[in-house]
């Protein structure tokens, strides 16, 4: 019975999209750190300290839980250990790529990983700026098809 609640909460959270990249859920993004049952609590972690999406995510989670009659479930923020892009799931990485954002490499492959253009698949790409449209992304450009694209920073 007890694990049923946890599974139910996880299933609800898996449908809560990230407000800035709506194709990926907050579970895929690794923002949901833990779901405990006693007391029932969802622990979320911010990606970047100043990320404005953090507030929106909190209220989206609240809304999703409330509409599933789970108003008694608390939401807490946990900072440690700090969020890392290694927590983005495999399916999350694929969804990012399909959406046009180059996914981050995992920490152990970061050094040799080539950045693939999400538009044409070429690896002949270059960084334009380490800071992009949101704190979690850098601005890149493909030398083959000339398209600019966002790349999720390895963090």
């Amino acid at each position, binding site marked *: 019975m007890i694990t049923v609640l946890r599974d139910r909460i996880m299933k609800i959270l898996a449908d809560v999209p990230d407000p800035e990249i709506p194709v990926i859920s907050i579970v895929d993004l690794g923002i949901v750190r833990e779901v405990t049952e006693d007391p029932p609590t969802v622990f979320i972690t*911010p990606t*970047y*300290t*100043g*990320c*404005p999406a953090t507030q929106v995510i909190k209220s989206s989670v609240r809304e999703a839980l409330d509409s599933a009659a789970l108003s008694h479930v608390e939401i807490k923020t946990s*900072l*440690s*250990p*700090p*969020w890392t892009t290694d927590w983005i799931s495999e399916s999350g990485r694929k969804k990012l790529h399909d959406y046009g954002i180059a996914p981050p490499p995992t920490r152990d492959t970061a050094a040799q990983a080539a950045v693939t253009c999400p538009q044409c698949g070429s690896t002949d790409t270059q960084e*334009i*700026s*380490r*800071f*992009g*449209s949101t*704190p979690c992304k850098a*601005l890149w450009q493909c030398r083959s098809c000339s398209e600019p694209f966002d790349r999720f920073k390895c*963090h």
Partner: protein
Amino acid sequence: MDREAALFEYLVRLGDDSLILSQQLSGWCGHAPTLEVDLSVANIALDLLGQATLLLDYAGEVEGKQRDADKLAFGRDALKFRNCLLVEQPNGDFAQTVARQFIFSTWQKLLYESLIQSSDSKLAGIAAKSLKEITYHADWAAEWVVRLGDGTDESRERMTNGLDWMWRFVGELFETDEIDSTLDKLGIAGTKESLRADFDAALKATLDAASLPLEPLPTPIFGGRIGHHSEHLGHILSEMQFLPRAYPGATW
């Protein structure tokens, strides 16, 4: 001095550093030399604002007088601010902003690296979280020091002038007073003097790469940590605090 009083002061100092620098950097939004620089500076400002929120919320918690980050940011006057003088210096031209950022982020990176070891787990958590972002800021600023210093005659002159403006405020970053020594004894935060050698080495490495000379630093100016600020802070606060002061308790 007891633990709580020292920790509160320390957190306010760190929080105010990030808050005031964030406010200053935000002044570039829409005015930076290129779109990429505009985005970079806005991102750095946002990271610093996030740090300030975490630090000042925690300071309010330690103080236990129902003050949160907003109350501390918008409800204090200049004399109660504890930021270092460096961060309240004017943006000037882009090179002056880069100079301020370079000195601050280089110092902040070393400081937060040491705070990860803090015996206060919450401060250690904030430091670890922020450090990932600060590393980007320090790299960004150092790259610009090299690019401007090693660029044209004009960019070199501007970079030199920008650094000349800021050098006076380096000494304050390494000041140690009763608050620092109290927290040092408790294992919460080491004294800043211990960071000096690494800071000097980082400074030299970047200035060498920029082929800029590193002269002996001028006599430092102190005062920010006890609320003795330059004339710039009042102007910053009048803009930053306008709305909550004109409409107390406003929400949207």
